């Protein structure tokens, strides 16, 4: 369970590049790749190992003109997806 003050971190094995505002993320430990849409890409960029979930939601709220609560809910849901797909640090390494 991640609190708003937790700092989400990218999986250390994940390789990512942004092409035309969409992040292409390769997960060697899963033998998979993922593509994020523009907002997902922005959140991924904001996951710099220093910002908390709450910090990220605040930035998204400002940039996308949505309320903080809506942004926080979306960011948490998105981080849940990342966790499910083994894209966050702390996930056990496993080849699919």
């Amino acid at each position, binding site marked *: 369970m991640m609190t708003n003050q937790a700092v989400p971190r990218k999986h250390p094995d994940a390789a990512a590049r942004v092409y035309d505002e969409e992040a292409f993320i390769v997960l*060697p430990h899963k033998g998979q790749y993922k593509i994020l849409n523009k907002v997902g890409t922005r959140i991924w960029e904001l996951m710099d190992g220093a910002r908390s979930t709450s910090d990220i939601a605040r930035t998204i709220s400002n940039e996308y003109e949505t309320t903080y609560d809506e942004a926080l809910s979306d*960011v948490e849901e998105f981080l849940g997806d990342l966790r499910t797909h083994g894209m966050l640090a702390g996930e056990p390494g496993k080849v699919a």
Partner: protein
Amino acid sequence: MSAEYTPSGKNAYADLVAKSWNSALPMTALWELTYACNHKCSFCYNCPERGRRELGKEQIIEGLRKIADLGCVFLVLSGGEPLTRPDFFDIAWAGKRLGFALRIYTNGYLVDEIVARKLRDLMPFEIEISFHGARPETFDRLTGVPGSFERVLQGIRNLRKHDLKVNMKCPITRWNQWELREIKALAESLGCHAEFDPVITPRDDGDTSPLALQADREFLDKLWSPEYVDITHEEVPVPRNDTLVQANCGTGRSTVALDPYGNIYPCVQWRRSAGLITEVQDLKALWNESPVLNEVRRIALEIPKTTLKTCESGEFCSFCPGVAEVQTGDPRNIYPQVKLTSEIRKQKHSDFLSIQSKPTS
């Protein structure tokens, strides 16, 4: 607002690749780290320059920094045999720290338990191992190294013990052409994926002697028939679809290739050097503005509208302008192998359509 991760991976990936090709955003850098090799495959296309010094570790790592700035996500470490370099793991780790997903092309001969553990720690996206036959006599004949079959097989087992993803890549030759199913079964028994490639190319210096090993006509006729759908994954050869991308191929677009001396090429098959990685300051500027690369891109755009339109079986051509240039002197010329394979593929396509159109009794 929607921040969802995109689960429709295949379509999204196809769109991204099309974007990479159409906008010349390279996703992959392939670096031949050395031409040294412990196999002696007679069909190998590499042509080392006698006496020329290959780049050192620091030069390569500096080059990798430039490639990371260019925006590639995949780094393919190839050769020759890259594991013959004593500094291979220093280079690979430098690539990993620069944020690349690694692919390693090796012959597997040096992958003992220690090397396999080091590769596991590196966690590459995949390892591609050249695999030449299902029987020792075939395999060793193609590599020119007695005992290589058993040793490579053990190398693959060592990698699989660590759950590393291994693709067994088999260039189809007339010596192994009738063993493909055995190779596939062997790969499956090891938990690997087998890939088969009927394309044998001339050497980079234009020497066409490797072509003598190409699969023969009798086999190619079968390869593109429904009988071999388990190998080709193609019930019937389908014509090219040039609607999503306009260029003939990804040359000068999807991949930047480098040789052991640091030459920068538009792809591994088309060796027109755009410069040396050790001398270029701004690789992105070179990639975007090089007259060599722009010429290559222009030719690749022309080919579907010219070469392939005038060739009777052009819509079934898997045409390589690099091979065309090295073999005929002109990247727009149809060369004998592509003519043969496209004719067979077109014939098989026609055969299929005629069967389909026959009325059933």
